[in-house]
């Protein structure tokens, strides 16, 4: 099981072109990132393509990791999430119908094999729990499904400006809870 320090070391070595470090990082994190890609894209073949692209980005950007202030798993998950969301939006723009998502309201932490800050983990779940369920669901949809304001407005059947005000208030509440 790779610790946070292990992952940072691997990324640091990758920045110097160490392929063995890349292999180690892939071994330690690919299952989590594949899980995230699969959840967002809900298509195995596309998730496999996405995972490849993600690790190509990770390899090429390893040198910039140090400066972004993120923990290694957050950096990796954010790259994987953003890439999957980009693909999802491209798919939506192409007119294909998006499958109804799996139960995204269920954010119960599963058995996590990767190094993460335990207190942070509990905190976001607790803070999301303080939001009105529909609003925390909207935040989740934006993050895990890439829903736009227009899509959220349609989903919750409220005007665009209302959904934006709604979500911004939820984000502010979330921020206040997280910084408590």
């Amino acid at each position: 099981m790779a610790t946070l320090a292990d992952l940072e070391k691997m990324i640091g070595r990758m920045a110097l072109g160490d392929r063995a470090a890349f292999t180690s990082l892939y071994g330690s994190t690919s299952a989590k990132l594949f899980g995230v890609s699969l959840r967002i894209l809900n298509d195995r073949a596309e998730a496999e393509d996405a995972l490849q692209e993600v690790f190509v980005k990770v390899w090429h950007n390893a040198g910039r990791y140090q400066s972004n202030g993120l923990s290694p798993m957050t950096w990796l998950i954010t790259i994987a999430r953003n890439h999957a969301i980009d693909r999802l939006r491209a798919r939506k723009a192409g007119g294909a119908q998006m499958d109804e998502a799996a139960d995204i309201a269920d954010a119960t932490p599963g058995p996590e094999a990767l190094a993460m800050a335990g207190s942070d983990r509990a905190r976001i779940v607790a803070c999301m729990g303080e939001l009105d369920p529909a609003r925390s669901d909207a935040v989740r949809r934006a993050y895990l499904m890439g829903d736009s304001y227009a899509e959220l407005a349609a989903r919750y059947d409220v005007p665009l400006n209302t959904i934006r005000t709604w979500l911004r208030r939820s984000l502010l509440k979330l921020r206040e809870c997280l910084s408590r």
Partner: protein
Amino acid sequence: MTTTAEREDDWTLTAEYALGLLTPAESAAFEDRLAVDPAFRADLADWHESFARLTDGIDPVTPPPGLEDRLTERLFGVPERRGLLRRLGLVPALAGGLVAALLVLFVTNQGLLTGPDVPEGPIYATEMATPAGDLVVRAAYDPATGTLALDRDAGAAPPGRSLEVWLIADGADPASLGILSDDPRTDLTVAADHRAAMPGGLLALTDEPAGGSPSGAPSGAPIASGTVRILEL
């Protein structure tokens, strides 16, 4: 002076940016501010940390085994070495990576770069260590002479056994390079037909009967290995 309302606006704007909810024009304007304001960047990092936790409920799914090979080939143009490693049951031994400076020190200490035999071309090096660190062998390879200098830092062959050095190149069967001597330092000469495969090749150690593998192939999985890489000097 930033008012609370402005501060709150900035927080939510940063979160909207992290979620990808801004329009392209809004995103571009935000990125302009991000570029010059460290406080924004710190906020953004905080939001990313928080949002990433939303994936905690997503279980890991092991990707198909072929994916890593395709990825490695795409990035490094080195197909199938992984496949061979897997077949040998090898765990990447360089998990922690190795520090080039240490190697420079090692090569220098070994006299490879001093005296009359200073190599003119590049030097390649690697380290082979067991996960527990009870056997550590460092290697430096001089392509000009075909000399592989092995330095046993820790550990030794079990009594009555030999440690055999193998070169594992792309798609080829492991080739024996020789046996580690009882001295801490062993110099081997790599046979001419294996030299081309040394840079980027994998060196591995196996535990063999005294004198080396009787079959000419490794008797078991490597106990330590390392990829031979160029040493930037």
